[in-house]
């Protein structure tokens, strides 16, 4: 069994003609770590993963696996297993043949293959389905076959490209938990690509958020949620995501509509466009009087069970979502006040998205 290896990426670049898909990406994934590459579609995260796998040529930079430079090593010599979004099961092979394929290629005897297949299949609870063909399996079962095929070889690292995105919501939640448990038990270094921030938050030891080929922030799920590096990260993490209201900096604070929000020690040049961000759980509805931080109009209220999500139309025309108790009674179109926890406000330069901090 191969021991978990560190994956190090140094200033990795990818150009497709004039298009710069990945821009000088540097990352280190520690042995046994679960790292999630998160970002909207087209941000370069899948390209980065494919470069680590060796399926895509690297335009510039280096990839190291353990102490070995694998930048120009063919995929088959990298000792990496990958789970594809489509699962990539061989339709003409049975479940057992699919799972055993890496060992067959490696020239293992039939007996060794059978033992390992039975073992891997048991780990993902596929025991009875070994004789079936992929077309006879459900989405979740196919996913398990793909996982079993990845773990059977005990590779130095796992790469996963949106492996759960073809499953329905319920199954996805369940498989997510199983995946996390399996990765923990096996202790294999894992890089996991997704656009789903909930998957990132729940699975990752650390999350790397990408946008337009550029790494935005790298940190634990808690860090990127509590302390986002910029407006993009703040707006990407959380469900519903962070609210932003746009205003202008004055001497006293940020003027939003007819109100001024205090800057809480953040110093910024007068007249700068500043966006104030706050999470849906860090604001509460109040009377639309002078003590309210903002006044807005109710757009719609949605009861989700344990809470009500109230969507408001902000003074700048944008939408604000606030978590409210489930039993709240509120009319659409009503004017309400909003109190925002001063300790949980985030300030950004509207034009650049740069985070403004009190100590800057």
């Amino acid at each position, binding site marked *: 069994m191969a021991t978990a290896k560190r994956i190090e990426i140094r200033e990795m670049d990818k150009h497709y003609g004039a298009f710069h898909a990945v821009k000088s990406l540097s990352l280190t994934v520690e042995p046994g770590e679960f790292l999630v590459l998160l970002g909207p579609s087209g941000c370069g995260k899948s390209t980065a993963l494919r470069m680590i*796998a*060796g*399926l895509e040529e690297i335009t510039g930079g280096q990839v190291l696996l353990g102490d070995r430079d694998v930048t120009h090593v*063919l*995929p*088959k010599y*990298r000792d*990496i*297993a*990958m789970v*594809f*979004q*489509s699962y*990539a*099961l*061989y*339709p*003409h092979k049975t479940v057992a043949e699919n799972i055993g*394929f*890496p060992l067959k*290629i*490696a020239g293992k005897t039939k007996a060794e293959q059978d033992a390992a297949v039975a073992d891997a299949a048991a780990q993902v609870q596929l025991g009875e389905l070994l004789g079936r063909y992929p077309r006879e399996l459900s989405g979740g079962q196919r996913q398990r076959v793909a996982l079993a*095929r990845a773990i059977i*070889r005990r590779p130095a690292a796992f790469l996963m490209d949106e492996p759960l995105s073809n499953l329905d919501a319920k199954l996805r939640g369940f498989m997510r938990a199983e995946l996390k448990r399996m990765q923990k038990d096996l202790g294999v270094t894992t890089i996991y690509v997704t656009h789903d921030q909930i998957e990132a938050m729940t699975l990752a030891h650390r999350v790397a958020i990408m946008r337009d080929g550029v790494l935005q922030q790298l940190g634990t799920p808690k860090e990127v949620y509590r302390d986002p590096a910029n407006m993009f990260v703040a707006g990407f993490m959380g469900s519903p995501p962070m609210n932003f209201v746009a205003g202008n900096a004055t001497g006293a604070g940020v003027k939003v509509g007819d109100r001024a929000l205090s800057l809480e020690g953040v110093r910024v040049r007068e007249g700068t466009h500043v966006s104030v961000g706050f999470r849906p759980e860090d604001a509460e509805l109040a009377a639309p009087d002078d003590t309210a931080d903002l006044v807005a109009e109710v757009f719609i209220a949605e009861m989700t069970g344990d809470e009500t999500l109230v969507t408001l139309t902000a003074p700048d025309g944008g939408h604000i979502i606030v978590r409210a108790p489930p039993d709240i009674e509120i009319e659409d179109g009503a004017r309400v006040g909003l109190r925002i926890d001063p300790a949980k406000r985030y300030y950004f330069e509207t034009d650049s998205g740069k985070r403004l901090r009190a100590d800057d």
Partner: protein
Amino acid sequence: MSLFTPRRVGHMSPGGSAITYLLLIVWAAFVIFPIYWLVITSFKSVNDVNSGPVFLPFIDFQPSLHAWRDLLIEDWADTSRSYINSIIIALASTALSVLIGSMAAYALARVTYAPRLSTVLAFVLCMAAVLVATMAYGVDWRLAGAVAVALFVLMVRGLGNRIAGRLGNGDILFWMISQRILAPVVVVVPIYMMFQSVGLLDTHIAIILTYAVINLPIVVWLMYDFFASIPRDLEESAQLDGATMFTVFREVVLPLSKPGLAATTLLVMILAWNEYLLALFLSTADAQTMPILVAAMNAGERGILWWTMSAVIVVMILPVLALAVVLQRFISKGILVGAVKG
């Protein structure tokens, strides 16, 4: 249109199914009739053929085995030789073109080629120069070749800076297909002279090579689409699992392209089996194929021997029929696979 609207899923109205079956029966009769006519003609006596159409054996006419006796006993040496020639040539040329063509198609579907336009131009020019020098001016081919290689290297460097364009996989594919668009009659004389100069006229190998080459573009063209429709993920996954490109081809790509291979094999084999023009030029007696034998019956001093010709044709279509039946299940599956994947 209510006549054809299903009452329940999978159930047509009685009127609708009656009309559907009627149309299908008419069409089937239309398609099968020539074969039927061929078979009964091979059993007709000379008189029955000459004295106007008769349709039903034992009712309209008394079947006779005279044509089959001629074919299988008196002319057996000739018939069997042509038959065996046809089988050898069709099998070997099909195997060659499918083997080489499918590998070329796979490479075109999966590897990106970008030859410089200038390199291709230089190569064509140098080849032309060698041919002109040796043919027209009698220059020693070794000397011409050496000069051409040197010239080629110089031209590649010189032209490379002036002509920036590159060719892609699409250009290569089109070039191959364009070789088939060219009518064989254009090249039949050069091919004849080529085999004459190497002393291979009227041999299996000459016809096998010629057929393999003219059918290669069809194989590349058809198989390219099949290979391109196989999801890349499957091949990439196999690569990561440690497979070489050749293993990927053998373990993943080939099993998945069975329908395409079956359809292509059948088509190419029928083309080789029926080919007449090139066989006419390249064979005289020893390598004579069935189409030549059939055509020869058209020109005997006894007039057209319809009965014997029919018997020969019946014998000739039997292997193709058998092959079609064997490969049919792959082919209908292949059509469906293509439809689903778009």
